[in-house]
């Protein structure tokens, strides 16, 4: 098995899956009806990406595990997502700060996978990414729209948006982890995306009259399965029904 590619694809898949799981919570809880629709859309896009990526991860592994086997039957130590996406979304400002940073990262990542300068591009990842680029471009637009409104809205929204950003910011660094050298030229090197992603996010933050947080990065580890305590609860909820009926079809 190509372990490096399995781990890399699993990381992309789990980021999207855990993010979709958090996004699904908002449906029926958004500040307005139009936003219920928009957040459901975004969650559905992320879930779709996760399903394609998990299916591919299963193929790379070659042991016959399906998207559901990987989503429902792995324990938290085997999840490869970053901590950014697993933390609770405590209010709408947090949701939008998270979406702005995460979707901007995904946009650069998927673009590079699909059309970046790669000598021996992984064609399956490229195809999955090519479809997802359009989706995450919309996610970035949507988050930008709200960060501007909340940053430059009322005094209260400004304060809440700023503290949301401050809370997300330490977790950005983990997105830009080093590439396993055996994957060079085949997939996007996430460490090389840092400047472009951060400069896009900074531009929105500044236009929203907010300040770019100056905070030290949080401890990483998600890609090695070292998560926050939040992930265990998220997975317990997501997996319990599937696991209660071993081997059943749904």
């Amino acid at each position: 098995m190509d372990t490096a590619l399995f781990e890399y694809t699993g990381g992309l898949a789990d980021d999207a899956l855990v993010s979709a799981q958090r996004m699904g919570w908002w449906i029926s809880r958004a500040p307005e009806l139009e936003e219920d629709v928009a957040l459901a859309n975004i969650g559905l896009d992320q879930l779709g990406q996760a399903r394609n990526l998990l299916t591919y991860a299963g193929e790379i592994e070659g042991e016959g595990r399906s998207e559901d086997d990987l989503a429902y039957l792995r324990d938290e130590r085997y999840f490869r997502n970053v901590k950014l996406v697993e933390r609770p979304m405590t209010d709408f400002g947090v949701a939008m700060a998270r979406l702005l940073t995460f979707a901007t990262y995904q946009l650069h990542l998927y673009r590079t996978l699909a059309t970046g300068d790669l000598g021996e591009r992984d064609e399956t990842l490229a195809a999955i990414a090519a479809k997802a680029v359009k989706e995450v471009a919309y996610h970035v637009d949507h988050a930008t729209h709200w960060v501007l409104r909340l940053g430059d809205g009322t005094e209260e929204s400004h304060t809440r948006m700023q503290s949301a950003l401050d809370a997300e910011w330490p977790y950005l660094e983990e997105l830009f982890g080093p590439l396993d050298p055996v994957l060079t030229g085949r997939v996007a090197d996430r460490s090389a995306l840092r400047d472009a992603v951060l400069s896009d996010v900074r531009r929105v933050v500044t236009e929203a009259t907010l300040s770019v947080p100056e905070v030290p990065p949080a401890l990483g580890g998600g890609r090695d399965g070292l998560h926050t305590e939040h992930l265990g609860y998220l997975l317990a909820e997501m997996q319990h029904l599937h696991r209660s009926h071993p081997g059943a079809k749904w």
Partner: protein
Amino acid sequence: MEGVYGNDFGTDQQPDPDRAAPDEAAFAALLAGEGRVEPRDDMPEAYRKTLIRQIAQHAHSEIIGMQPEGNWISRAPSLRRKAILMAKVQDEAGHGLYLYAAAETLGVDRADLVDQLHSGRQKYSSIFNYPTLTWADVGAIGWLVDGAAITNQVPLCRCSYGPYARAMVRVCKEESFHQRQGFEILYTLSHGTPEQKAMAQDAVNRYWWPSLMMFGPPDDDSPNSARSMAWGIKRFSNDDLRQRFVDMTVPQSEALGLGLPDPEIRWNDERGHYDYGEIDFTELFEVIKGNGPCNAERMAHKRRAYDEGAWVRTAAEAYAAKRARATESVA
């Protein structure tokens, strides 16, 4: 009082003295010719009020209906089912949006209607006051509740009020997907493990009678129906629609391999319909009064989301006002 969505629930309405009385004869002629009433047309005040109430309560039902199924998004047992369920709940939000827009063509504000829901002055369908206790409930809701909604709403595609009729055409297309998806969930469970089959049967047992009650009280106990029929808002009586639903559903339950919790269901050759047992409407009236299993939870959830989003909506307004001032000062 009728606990149905796409039906008139009936509450007191004051006439609006500001609106001039239309030419009653011209309106009657329009209806008799099966013409569509459009927002610009003159219409009797009572017709307008009835429609506002019915469309608003239909919209509220779509929105509150997001909760019982939304309850299973995080726990859906496969990623495919999770995606289908998210899309379904999203569709219901969309239905609410079309319907509020249709109501607004009658000169009311969505914000006012939502306010009437929050204060309890307007109702939503009682079916959404039942809890979704197992995954099979998601299937039972799709099959039975969306099925009953379609039965009720297909005739509304020919409703005399144009914007409502057109909204129903879009809504019905999606509801029939929902019904098929619900059937498919139950079919899979019914043909799965013994535990899955038991789960499916239990859900159908709990949702069958409440689904029949969605069509409202029997015809002789339904004060607003006759007027709504004369106005072309309602095309069939409650009991006719209920019979239609039973006739459609009984053969489907056989295809599912699931029983219905009514020993009196049997084909009646003479009538050309299925007979069914008597419905205990005291339960419906209790749920409408607020004593259903989840009335308090549904309203608390809705109000909480609304209150917690207040700062966001205020910020969006403030931002828009700032932009408008900036554009003005440039111009």
